Structures are given as structure tokens and as C-alpha cells.
């Protein structure tokens, strides 16, 4: 069996939902897009056009969210379903939308640019620990207005895995859907076999902005999966308690789900989030705090109870370099996310409250993820008898290494780490230069980058280049940053 890690007793899940329904019925949710309010009014919600506050009954909410698919797949660029949203499947992708890059030599956090994102993508594409890739860092050298689609453009050129992305303006979402459609064979095919999921964020507490609403509606109607990223900040933007924040998360997510499903019933939707506690000493938002991970495990449990696929932000660190703190926070939080059976866990490779990314840390995090996935797989009987048959011919000698079963089963039972994890004898470690984990990750990253080969798809790329040249000119950029293709 798989580990069944739950922080909430069933009656507590019900109390969370009861209070979320109460908030949506009594306090309501602020819905800032008129078209979304109209959808809600038509469905029977109590809409105040002056205050933009919409009050929702439990019956309306339950009716609307009943059409949310319990499962859907994201496809890779080869057209195969390779990411499953649903059930207890555990998958990881690198964090999103950092603004800095950790220079591996100087350890400075420098503004991220195109070559940095390319490196992150090459590493994420190469490492099997990552089930999906993401639009990980902003490229600071291109105009902000084109930043969203520009990142997706690089992702499409350098990877084949499914994509976790998002947009910071409703108009760009349409452009990005068109871009993906080039690779899917049209918008209709993209809805059949989606290549990407789009993050859409409510604004805490209990607000769905114009842009957030528009994204929900557009994505639902395009049949492109949406991933709601509710971000209660416990003690600042949300109640200080874990349960209080989980209630707010549920209320914001339920309201978003209603808008989304009213726009297009049955459109794929994810119960995601990026909550954090509020650090009462520094006033920061620690992603590596154990309570942050606890909020995530709780809201995921609530989402699963409602039948939603799930997502969260874990596996990152608040530390500024890939040191002990980084390993501790990234590893422990990845493990908690995996045990909670969360379908997509974003955040690997990131430092400094999700502001900074490092390909080297991505390489290190792949090991934490490997171990977390192993743990989540749990313990199964791999042989007919657990041990008896393997004792045949042993005669009190420690000779199990010679057993055929050992050869057949060791790689099923053990997660086999890369060279980044040091399990050598001290002699072998010294002979290899007595490197610490960071130095080993630097070397391994170089190996990965040297072995990387770009997956070339001439047909869609031709159209993609034409499309981005036109878009870049419209954004005031005559020439795109050069790429080594």
C-alpha cells in the first residue's frame, strides 16, 4: 500500500468546508470582472454590482463543482499522456517565475535572462525526476509586456515535457494558447490533448480580480487546464492558524471553480495553491517552513475530498545558496508534498522565497524528489515469498548479493541516486576531489548540459518563429535575444 498521510480527521475536513461555505454565503467573494458576475447571477448567486461582492449558496457551489473532472492528462510534445492530474499520483516540476538566477561561481543573485532560463529548461528536460517543465524565470532583458509568451516560446523550443505555465495578463493567455496550438495541431486538438496547465491566482483574501476571472473563463472555454493558485498568507493575508488559512484557501478555490465551471462545465481544473505562513520576525513568506507544507497537505486533502486534482508549491528553500538549510527545507517539504499525494508539486530549483532559480539546485533537488517519490510509492511485496525463497542455498552465508532475486529486484526496491549523492567510501570521495554536494551538483550540471540535445520540430518551429517575430515587433523589440539552436 501507499503511505496514507493525512493531517486532518474527517470531521475537520467537514468543518473546513462548512466554514468555507459559510464565508461564501455570508461574507461573499469579491468578483471584479462584470462578465464573471453575470455568469454567477445567471446561476442564481446574490450579486451586488456596486460592491462587486457575490454571495454563493452551498447548493449552487456544489452543483457547479460537480462537473469538475476528477482526472485529466497533460501530453508531451510527442503526443503521449505523460502527466496525470488525479488520484494520488505524485509529480514534480521546477518552480515558476523567479526573477533572479544564482550565479554558480560568484553565488550572486543576478537578474535572470534568456541563457539562464534556457539552462534551467535543459536541465529540467534532461532529469527524469521532473515530470513537467515550467516557465521558471522572467527574462529581464525583454520588455515586460512580452515576458509571458517569451518564456513559453523558450520552453517550446528546448523541451518536450508537459508545461506548467501562466500569464500575468488576460490578453497574453490567448497568445500563449495559440502558441501551444501550433504544437498540438490547432486549438481543438489542444483541448483534446492539452500540452500545458495555466496557473490562475485569486487575490487574498477572497478576491477574484478582473484578470483572474478572465483567465478562468478563457481557459475553461479553450479547454486548456487551469490550476488555481490560492495563496493565503497565514497571519497577514489570511487567518494565522493553519486551519483558518485552509478555510480561506477552500473558499477562494471554490469560488474560482464555480466561475470556471459556469463558463464551461467539465473543463479541466486543478485545486492548487502557494500558501505560506508569515514570518513574524522578518515579515517574509517562508516556503520552506514546515507549517507552510502542513497548510498544503491540509488543503490538498480538502481538494481530494471534493474530487479535484491537486497541486502545490513545495520543494523550494528560503535560503540564498544551496546549503544545509536549502537541502533541509527543499527535501523535507518535497517529502511532505509527496506523502500528501499531491499531483503536481512546483518549486524545485528555487531559493529566496521563489525569487531565485539555480539549475545546480534543480540537480540537487532531483535527488530529494527521487527519495520523496520512492517514499510515496510505499512498500509492496516484490516477490512471491517475502524472504523464504531468497534463503535457498544461503546456508548462513551473507551471499544475497549473488542471488538472482537481488539482481532482478534491487533497482525496483531502491531509488538509485545520481553522483550528486555521496555514498562512496572516504577514499573514493577523497580521490574524486573531496567535493561537497554543491560542487558535485555543479559538475553534474555541466555533464547534463553537455549531453543535452535540443528536440527539433521543424514544422511548428517555423510557424513559432514567425509568430514571435511579429509579437516581438508589436512589443517594441525588433530583434529577439540570440539563441544557440
Amino acid at each position, binding site marked *: 500500500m501507499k503511505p496514507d498521510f493525512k493531517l486532518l480527521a474527517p470531521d475537520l475536513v467537514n468543518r473546513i468546508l462548512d466554514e468555507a461555505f459559510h464565508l461564501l454565503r455570508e461574507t461573499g467573494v469579491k468578483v471584479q470582472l462584470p462578465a464573471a458576475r453575470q455568469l454567477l447571477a445567471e446561476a442564481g448567486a446574490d450579486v451586488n454590482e456596486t460592491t462587486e461582492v457575490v454571495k454563493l449558496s452551498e447548493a449552487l457551489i456544489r452543483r457547479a463543482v460537480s462537473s469538475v473532472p476528477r482526472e485529466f492528462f497533460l501530453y508531451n510534445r510527442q503526443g503521449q499522456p505523460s502527466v496525470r492530474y488525479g488520484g494520488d499520483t505524485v509529480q514534480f516540476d521546477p518552480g515558476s517565475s523567479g526573477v533572479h538566477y544564482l550565479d554558480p561561481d560568484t553565488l550572486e543573485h543576478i537578474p535572470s535572462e534568456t541563457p539562464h532560463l534556457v539552462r534551467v529548461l535543459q536541465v529540467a528536460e534532461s532529469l527524469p525526476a521532473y515530470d513537467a517543465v515550467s516557465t521558471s524565470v522572467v527574462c529581464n532583458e525583454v520588455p515586460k509586456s512580452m515576458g509571458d509568451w517569451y518564456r513559453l516560446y523558450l520552453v517550446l523550443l528546448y523541451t518536450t515535457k508537459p508545461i506548467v505555465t501562466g500569464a500575468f495578463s488576460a490578453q497574453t493567455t490567448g497568445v500563449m494558447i495559440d502558441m501551444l496550438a501550433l504544437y498540438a495541431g490547432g486549438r481543438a486538438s489542444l483541448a483534446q490533448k492539452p500540452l500545458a496547465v495555466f496557473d490562475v491566482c485569486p487575490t487574498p483574501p477572497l478576491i477574484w480580480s478582473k484578470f483572474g476571472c478572465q483567465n478562468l473563463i478563457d481557459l475553461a472555454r479553450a479547454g486548456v487546464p487551469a490550476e488555481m493558485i490560492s495563496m493565503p498568507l497565514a497571519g497577514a493575508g489570511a487567518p494565522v492558524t493553519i486551519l483558518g488559512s485552509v478555510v480561506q484557501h477552500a473558499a477562494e478555490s471554490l469560488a474560482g471553480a464555480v466561475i470556471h465551471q459556469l463558463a464551461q462545465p467539465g473543463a479541466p481544473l486543478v485545486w492548487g495553491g502557494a500558501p505560506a505562513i508569515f514570518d513574524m520576525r522578518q515579515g517574509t513568506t517562508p516556503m520552506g517552513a514546515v507549517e507552510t507544507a502542513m497548510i498544503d497537505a491540509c488543503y490538498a486533502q480538502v481538494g481530494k475530498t471534493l474530487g479535484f486534482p491537486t497541486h502545490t508549491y513545495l520543494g523550494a528553500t528560503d535560503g540564498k545558496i544551496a546549503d544545509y538549510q536549502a537541502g533541509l527545507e527543499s527535501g523535507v517539504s518535497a517529502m511532505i508534498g509527496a506523502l500528501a499525494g499531491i499531483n503536481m508539486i512546483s518549486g524545485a530549483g528555487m531559493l529566496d522565497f521563489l525569487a531565485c532559480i539555480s539549475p545546480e539546485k534543480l540537480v540537487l533537488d532531483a535527488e530529494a524528489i527521487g527519495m520523496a517519490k520512492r517514499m510515496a510509492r510505499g512498500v509492496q511485496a516484490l516477490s512471491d515469498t517475502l524472504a523464504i525463497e531468497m534463503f535457498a542455498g544461503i546456508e548462513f*552465508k*551473507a551471499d544475497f*548479493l549473488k542471488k538472482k532475486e*537481488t539482481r532482478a529486484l*534491487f533497482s525496483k526496491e531502491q531509488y538509485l541516486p545520481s553522483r550528486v549523492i555521496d555514498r*562512496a*567510501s*572516504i*577514499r*573514493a570521495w577523497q580521490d574524486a576531489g573531496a567535493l561537497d554536494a554543491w560542487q558535485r551538483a555543479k559538475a553534474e550540471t555541466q555533464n547534463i548540459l553537455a549531453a543535452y540535445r535540443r528536440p527539433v520540430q521543424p514544422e511548428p518551429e517555423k510557424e513559432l518563429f514567425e509568430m514571435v517575430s511579429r509579437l516581438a515587433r508589436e512589443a517594441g523589440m525588433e530583434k529577439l535575444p540570440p539563441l544557440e539552436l
Partner: protein
Amino acid sequence: MSQDLFDAMRQSIIDGDPEQAAALVQQAIAQGLDPLVALNQGFVPGVNYVGEQFAQGEMFLPELVVAGEAMKAAVAVLEPEFAKRGTERQILGKVVIGTIEGDIHEIGKTLVATMLSASGFQVYDLGVDVPVMTFVEKAREVNADIIAISALLTTTMVRQKDVIEALQDSNVSAKVMVGGAPVTQGWAQEIGAHGYSEDAVGAVAVAKRLMGLA
């Protein structure tokens, strides 16, 4: 024709299949193939491949060990053929190995034996709890080049020194290498051992050095 057979031999080692390896030797003998050619062109490339893959981290100990077992099975059938023809397979050296008297720790010693064997040494594994004089007698009997002595306990490692003294008393000229968790380079020097390694991979390098090969 022969190339297919060589490929099958190589594969039997990579697959770690002793029965298949032995059967292929029989087949080769039936076809009148020179046993030395069968060994060097069929099985040795398999062992080399596994060794390289292991060194690169692409293959793992269970695969290395079963490959060693398959090689052993092939050699067991080949040896009488060598004897018949008065030829010998080329070996890097003869090693007598065991865990010292009073100590029943086996895994590290067996790993070293496997690695040495897979690397081309003729290995005589005396097992565990081996009396001092058994090392000496076996070394004399097989004209060993190296005696490798394992000890996992601080209480038993002192007997490694007894073996070295007994060898001197008996005029047996084999070189001695020592290993085991409590054993250090300093200890090896103190007792007059010729070689020490911390792990099985290093032990092969030490053995080759003692043979003047590296």
C-alpha cells in the same frame, strides 16, 4: 558463426547467467573452438563491459556479482580443457583471501574477492573465521602472489599482524594486503602490510600495484 557464439558468451556474462555461460563453453568445445579463444574473445569482453559500466555508475553490485558468478561457471568448464591442451588462461596474479580467525564478517571480503576475480585475478576465497596458518598454507599450496586479509573488529584485526609474522617464519613471499572497517593506512604500515584499501574498487588498484601492473 564464431562471432555469434562470442556475442552469446559476452551476453551470458552481462546477463549474469551461469547456466548459459557453461552451456556455451560446452558448445564451443563441441565445435572444436580453442578454449583460450573462447575465453578471451567471448567471456572476457563481457567481464570488461560490466566492469566499465560499473565504474561509470551505470551498473551496480548485484549485476557485477552475478557477472562474476557467470564468469566463474564458464572458467570451471574451461579449466579442464586448458589442462588437456597444456595451456593456461592469463591471470594478473593469484590471491588468497579470507576474513581472519574469530571474525565472521563476510560481505566486504566477498566484494573484494569478486572485484579481484572480475578484474582477472585468480582468487582463492577461504571464507570467514580463517586461522592464521590456513592463510599461510594455502598461499604456499597455490604459490600465491597476494594474501588479502579482512577484519571487521578491532579485537580481530590484531591477528592480521600474526599472519604477516607467520609468513615470514614460513618463508612464504606473498605480499599482504589488509582491509576492513577499523583498518587504516597507519595500521597497515605499523604491521608491515604491503597494501591497504578502504573499499573494493581501491583493493583492485592496490592488488595491481603489488603485482607491478599499475
